[in-house]
């Protein structure tokens, strides 16, 4: 327990008798804190940065509402207005919602799962810096008076060079793509953490429900973000060098952008909603005092939502002239996704029905969430009906709907989560009184602002207009909406004030302040940097409720694995992905500057592209490559063993396909496959809608295509052999074959002219993408050869060789798919 006489929260306890161990886990003081890679530090950085973006974007929303307060207002001119609503949507969706939720995941998951840190702390830190730099690039557009103004979905042809000259769209494309790197790296990290570092005994079905939500979300990110990354690259390439992907005159199609954008965009709203719902599913049982009703149902709902939400994208394109039958497909899918959503909401309602909840501040926000989100879901069903959609399309009805689901489904749970978990961050409680003020102001302000927008929309007011004439029935509704938004903003201000001021005014947080059942509350706030002195065996989903010994003893006296680490290294327990039984010891890195420097190099590279300074861009990319190499150079520790207290002896960093690095490679490959599939989608889409352009740009060379495939297969074979016979020669062979395959692929597409047709341009992109994959294999293999030659590797240390196999196989698969695509038009004639 915290010393009652102490007036400041303290992190600890710090055990003097375990000096090396405590020093290994200490966060560096002063400005060297920036080198920290601990998930607790990185998670808080994500959360605070996300909050700042929320405030900026919220301020922009107030500007929008202020402009619309009266008809024919001149507060903002039309151009500024466009910039303001675009930046509002962009910041909210890309730089607030996703990163802040990932931040909570990064902070909370190891604590809930019983791990001392995330498995790849440096990756997390790298992701954070990418996010920060990407966000700064987007924000910098204001400074250069080049803020994007094409709407948060940047539709072509408006966003092409012809209609948006200048740099505004480039700021958007480059900054957002950069920030998305952060999201996908964090996703891989969360997948590996959830699957590979759980407390002993925590099988998948004993996992806290939040971990299920985050696991599905992370998988959705790996598949859902690539379409936008590909779309952004295509658009940026079209803007920079004029490849005609979206130009109908050369066989392109503006709708390609819409498909790619919404292939990302619709899953994105679920990616935003699911973690927030997971927070609700975690907090709600605490206040009801009973476990979540229907754990199995909730898992099923989350998993099915994760899949079905990928089949809805074209409901954002109902007004684009797609065939009626296609509209019907997407309308049907959009209707059916309500079933899992409903199952999940009923889990919450039935949990509530078990017992009267304690009406704390987080509980207020949970009830607000249920009320608002259900209304948003209902208007969503309305919009899924094609005829109604045509009526309401691009009107304020849509603005109302999207804010009901986003603010109700994400912001309310999030503020609740802040009240709930802030004691864990700061060791102090936020104010119950201010919290209730914040809630009621936000709740009433929200409905005044957005409920009325349904009516404004049905009365015909389009979204994204900077002003409107008086006397057509929109005046009073808009006035009230604006007043409502000020009330909503007042609620946010109260919350932010409380969040800041509680650090000196808030009462000290006791141990397990909310009487929760999940492991993150094992230590009295603020938990020590290593999270768990010993990692306890877990027998239930609510260990703090069902294993009374955990809270009866002092937290650092808990029985469990790895009571300390006398060798002064950071480490945690790695588990079997399904059963949760201990499998290995995962060695973790200490504070390091490399993630920051590498991310900075990438930032230099991206900004240089923006400024058309390609030499600097290339230099930045090379520096980043060196950064990655320095990152991965450390000696392998496979082969060592650690004696844990209770569970016998465990090997360090096992060379197995169940190991954490292999799982992470699988996650990474999901991203790569999704990127490739997005390119393939672009190829097939253009081929299908603009048939007359198929062979206008010349035919690929099939001889070189077959060489590329042959080398790709050879490369996979050698990589596979290298697993059982790790030798530098084999690494060099893989590198050589990868290089030749890439070069042959280049020769294969060389006869086609990418400037001539959009299809040829996408083929070049496909070849370029595979070329990048080959380059990764080449670089990786040279790196491994170098390590072997320089005596860095001992016998049996074959983790990288194991990991390279799936990478090579998937790349070879891509080569084969590419060969089919390149050959198909020529073979078609034969029949």
């Amino acid at each position, binding site marked *: 327990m915290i010393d009652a006489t102490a007036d400041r929260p303290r992190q600890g306890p710090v055990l003097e008798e375990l000096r090396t161990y405590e020093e290994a886990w200490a966060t560096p003081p002063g400005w060297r804190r920036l080198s920290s890679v601990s998930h607790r530090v990185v998670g808080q950085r994500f959360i605070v940065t996300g909050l700042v973006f929320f405030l900026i974007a919220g301020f922009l929303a107030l500007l929008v509402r202020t402009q619309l307060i009266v008809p024919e207002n001149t507060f903002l001119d039309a151009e500024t207005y466009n910039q303001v609503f675009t930046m509002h949507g962009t910041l909210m969706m890309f730089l607030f919602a996703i990163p802040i939720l990932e931040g909570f995941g990064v902070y909370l998951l190891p604590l809930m799962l019983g791990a001392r840190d995330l498995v790849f702390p440096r990756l997390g830190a790298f992701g954070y810096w990418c996010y920060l730099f990407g966000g700064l690039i987007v924000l910098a557009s204001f400074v250069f008076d080049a803020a994007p103004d094409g709407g948060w979905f940047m539709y072509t042809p408006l966003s092409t060079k012809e209609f948006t000259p200048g740099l505004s769209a480039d700021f958007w494309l480059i900054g957002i793509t950069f920030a998305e790197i952060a999201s996908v790296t964090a996703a891989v990290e969360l997948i590996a953490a959830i699957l590979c570092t759980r407390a002993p005994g925590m099988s998948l079905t004993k996992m806290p429900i939040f971990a299920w939500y985050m696991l599905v979300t992370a998988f959705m990110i790996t598949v859902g973000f690539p379409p936008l990354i590909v779309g952004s690259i295509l658009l940026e390439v079209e803007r920079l060098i004029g490849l005609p992907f979206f130009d109908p005159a050369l066989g392109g199609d503006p709708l390609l952008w819409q498909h790619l954008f919404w292939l990302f965009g619709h899953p994105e709203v679920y990616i935003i909603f699911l973690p927030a719902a997971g927070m609700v599913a975690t907090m709600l049982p605490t206040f009801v005092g009973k476990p979540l009703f229907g754990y199995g149902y909730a898992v099923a709902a989350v998993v099915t939502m994760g899949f079905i939400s990928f089949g809805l994208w074209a409901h954002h394109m109902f007004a684009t002239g797609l*065939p009626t039958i*296609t509209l019907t*497909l997407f309308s049907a899918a959009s209707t059916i996704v309500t079933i899992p959503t409903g199952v999940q909401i009923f889990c919450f309602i039935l949990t509530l029905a078990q017992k009267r909840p304690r009406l704390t501040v987080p509980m207020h926000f949970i009830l607000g969430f249920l009320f608002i989100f259900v209304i948003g879901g209902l208007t969503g069903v309305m919009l899924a009906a094609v005829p109604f959609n045509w009526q309401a399309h691009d009107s304020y009805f849509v603005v109302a709907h999207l804010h009901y689901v986003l603010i109700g489904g994400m912001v309310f749970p999030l503020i609740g989560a802040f009240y709930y978990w802030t004691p864990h961050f700061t060791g102090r409680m936020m104010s119950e009184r201010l919290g209730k003020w914040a809630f009621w102001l936000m709740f009433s302000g929200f409905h005044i602002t957005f409920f009325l927008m349904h009516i404004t929309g049905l009365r015909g007011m389009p979204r994204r207009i900077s002003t409107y004439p008086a006397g057509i029935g929109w005046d009073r509704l808009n006035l009230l909406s604006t007043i409502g938004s000020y009330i909503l903003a007042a609620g946010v201000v109260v919350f932010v004030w409380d969040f800041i001021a509680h650090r000196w005014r808030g009462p000290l947080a006791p141990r397990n302040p909310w009487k929760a059942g999940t492991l993150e509350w094992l230590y009295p706030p603020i938990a020590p940097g290593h999270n768990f002195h010993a990692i306890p065996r877990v027998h239930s989903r609510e260990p703090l409720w069902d294993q009374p010994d955990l809270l009866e003893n002092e937290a650092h006296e808990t029985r469990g694995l790895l009571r300390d680490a006398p060798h002064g290294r950071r480490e945690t327990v790695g588990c079997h992905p399904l059963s949760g039984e201990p499998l290995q010891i995962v060695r973790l890195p200490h504070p390091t500057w490399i993630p920051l420097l590498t991310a900075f190099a990438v930032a230099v590279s991206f900004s240089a592209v923006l400024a058309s300074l390609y030499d600097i861009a290339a230099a930045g990319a090379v520096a980043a490559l060196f950064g990655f190499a320095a990152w991965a150079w450390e000696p392998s520790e496979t082969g060592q063993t650690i004696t844990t207290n209770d569970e016998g002896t465990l090997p360090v960093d096992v060379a197995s396909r169940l190991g954490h690095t292999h799982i992470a490679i699988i996650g990474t490959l999901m991203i790569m496959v999704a990127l490739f599939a997005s390119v393939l989608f672009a190829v097939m889409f253009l081929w*299908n809608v603009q048939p007359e352009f198929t062979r206008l740009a010349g035919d690929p060379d099939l001889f070189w295509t077959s060489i590329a495939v042959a080398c790709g297969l050879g490369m996979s074979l050698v990589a596979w052999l290298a697993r059982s016979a790790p030798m530098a020669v084999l690494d060099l062979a893989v590198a050589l074959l990868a290089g030749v395959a890439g070069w042959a692929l280049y020769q294969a597409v060389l006869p086609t002219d990418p400037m001539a047709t959009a299809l040829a341009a996408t083929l070049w992109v496909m070849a370029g993408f595979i070329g990048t994959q080959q380059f990764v294999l080449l670089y990786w293999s040279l790196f491994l050869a170098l390590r072997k030659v320089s005596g860095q590797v001992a016998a049996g240390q074959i983790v990288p060789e194991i990991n390279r196999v799936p990478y090579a196989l998937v790349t070879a698969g891509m080569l084969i798919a590419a060969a089919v695509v390149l050959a198909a038009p020529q073979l078609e004639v034969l029949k």
Partner: protein
Amino acid sequence: MTDRPPRPQTRPHIAPGLRDVARPVVIWTLHFILVYAALSAACAERAVASYPAAVIAVSIGTPVALVLAGWGLLRRGDQPMRIAARVTIIISLLAILFNTAPVLLLDGCR
């Protein structure tokens, strides 16, 4: 506790349930891709396939998908994974039926 040494090789009992959670949604995905591809083949400029061909593809694919996704629905048990599997299967079956709505409701691309 020492009586439970780490045994990564033993197949944990949740694996079959987990498979029954994953399979139906994957089948749904494949079925969705089939329907979308069939409609895109029949209803876009290139007209790779005729409309009747698309209908035939969907009519063959749907029963297959329903059987593959529905497999395991009757398996008993009340562990969380089994419950999750059952609910996932039911939702996926419904969603597969909904995927066929366009060909059931309409008689051409329009």
